């Protein structure tokens, strides 16, 4: 229980730290690009304006939050180690598991708040233009958060063994790309033999299947590729396993 309370305190401080880094400036970028694109979509997409603005807004929301998630998770712990701030934290009764859990939880919370604010901006724009949001809207936003939580969890782990924040961002971005290629990898595996098939099958074990959470692309009319129980378990595993491995690496570091 005390570990949980400590983790929550660390999370609270980390959230405030993210707030001070002015991540909300990204909202202005989002709002500006969205309004500009909606004006263009109104002219070019004519009767498909609602669909185009919805799709563009959701995609932009995901990419902007992804950029922040990668940058923030790549430097969340390593920067504290470089600036020696971590000495101050760990010299107090803060256990390493609680510290790590708190840092990760703060990132998940920041991503959720970013998505919530951007979704409000997006919905306001749709409302101003007299357009109704798609039925899948809230599900799409929630699933974007799931994808971002998975990649943030992986990026935190990568940051503990990579040589720089840039390499963490690059590796995580590659993981993000591969995570969307699982259907294509499955198709290739079914047509390949020998080493190629083995490689593709093995890769599927360690690459998160982000297409499972791609409700934005699947829309409401398409049958979901997996049930909600499996998705919840899969998400939980992708949060817990990188955390446990991060903990192994983090325990070995000497401060």
């Amino acid at each position: 229980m005390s570990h949980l309370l400590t983790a929550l305190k660390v999370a609270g401080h980390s959230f405030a730290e993210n707030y001070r880094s002015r991540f909300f400036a990204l909202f202005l970028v989002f709002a500006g690009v969205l309004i500009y694109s909606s004006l263009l979509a109104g002219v070019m997409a004519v009767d498909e304006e609602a669909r185009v603005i919805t799709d563009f807004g959701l995609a932009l929301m995901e990419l902007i939050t992804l950029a922040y998630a990668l940058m923030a998770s790549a430097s969340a712990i390593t920067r504290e180690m470089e600036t020696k701030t971590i000495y101050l934290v760990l010299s107090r009764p803060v256990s390493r598991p609680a510290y790590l859990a708190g840092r990760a939880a703060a990132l998940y919370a920041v991503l959720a708040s970013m998505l919530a604010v951007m979704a409000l901006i997006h919905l306001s724009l749709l409302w101003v233009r007299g357009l109704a949001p798609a039925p899948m809207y809230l599900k799409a936003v929630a699933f974007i958060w799931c994808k971002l939580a998975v990649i943030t969890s992986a990026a935190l782990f990568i940051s503990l063994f990579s040589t720089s924040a840039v390499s963490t961002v690059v590796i995580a971005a590659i993981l993000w790309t591969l995570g969307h290629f699982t259907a294509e990898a499955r198709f290739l595996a079914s047509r390949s033999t020998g080493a190629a098939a083995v490689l593709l099958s093995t890769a599927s074990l360690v690459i998160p299947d982000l297409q499972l959470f791609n409700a934005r692309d699947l829309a409401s009319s398409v049958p979901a590729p997996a049930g909600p129980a499996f998705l919840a378990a899969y998400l939980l595993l992708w949060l817990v396993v990188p955390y446990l491995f991060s903990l192994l690496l983090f325990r070995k570091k000497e401060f």
Partner: protein
Amino acid sequence: MKKYPDLYLALFSAVVLCLAGRWAFLGTRSPFPPPDSIREVRRSAVGDAIALSLGLRRLAADVWFIRLMQYYGAPSPESAEAGAGPQEYGAGAYPEFLPMARHILALDPYFTNAALFSAGSLAFNMNRPEEAVAFLEDAMSFAPREWKYATLLSAIGYSKAKDPRKVAETITPLLNEPDCPVMLRQLGAFLNKKAGDYAAAYRIYGDILATSKDPFYVDNARREMEKLAPLLRAPL
């Protein structure tokens, strides 16, 4: 075991994650067509690869639909080359129309309005009903319960039999849908007018005027309503 509890826990959970990943890899089925169904159109390969790798199929389909409308909104290539005068809207060869429409469907096979717009344009404006039927059959393979496709298929059948009244009757349920492509509404109004049902034509043109944002269709609807009003003795 007691010495390295974290290690054993991490390894155990990693094994569970691998099993879940394996199940997700083998047990789930992508609702999208395989990647080899995406044919390159107008040097689309790089854009398509980016869209797939970022999970942006739907947005890519939107962009290609806008491109299709821009292509179809311009004079057809052969008439532009021949320097021909104004021709009936939508008529012409438009050789890239079908590949572009297929491209949209390969990216997002659930983009119903794009499929209806493309099939309707092929069948009724470009007089290519066989291609429209084949295209709709492809679309139906992904959405077999989509009644709008079935309705349009029937309408194309009546159109081939040169029965405009029956075509108009068949597509009426489609026209009542709030998101029906304006091109089909325009077609419904035109066919009703041709079949002598001026009241129905007037009502559909009124719907176009009230709901569409496409200036071409709006201007055309206004002109047609002005022509039909004296026939109906209806106020404008």
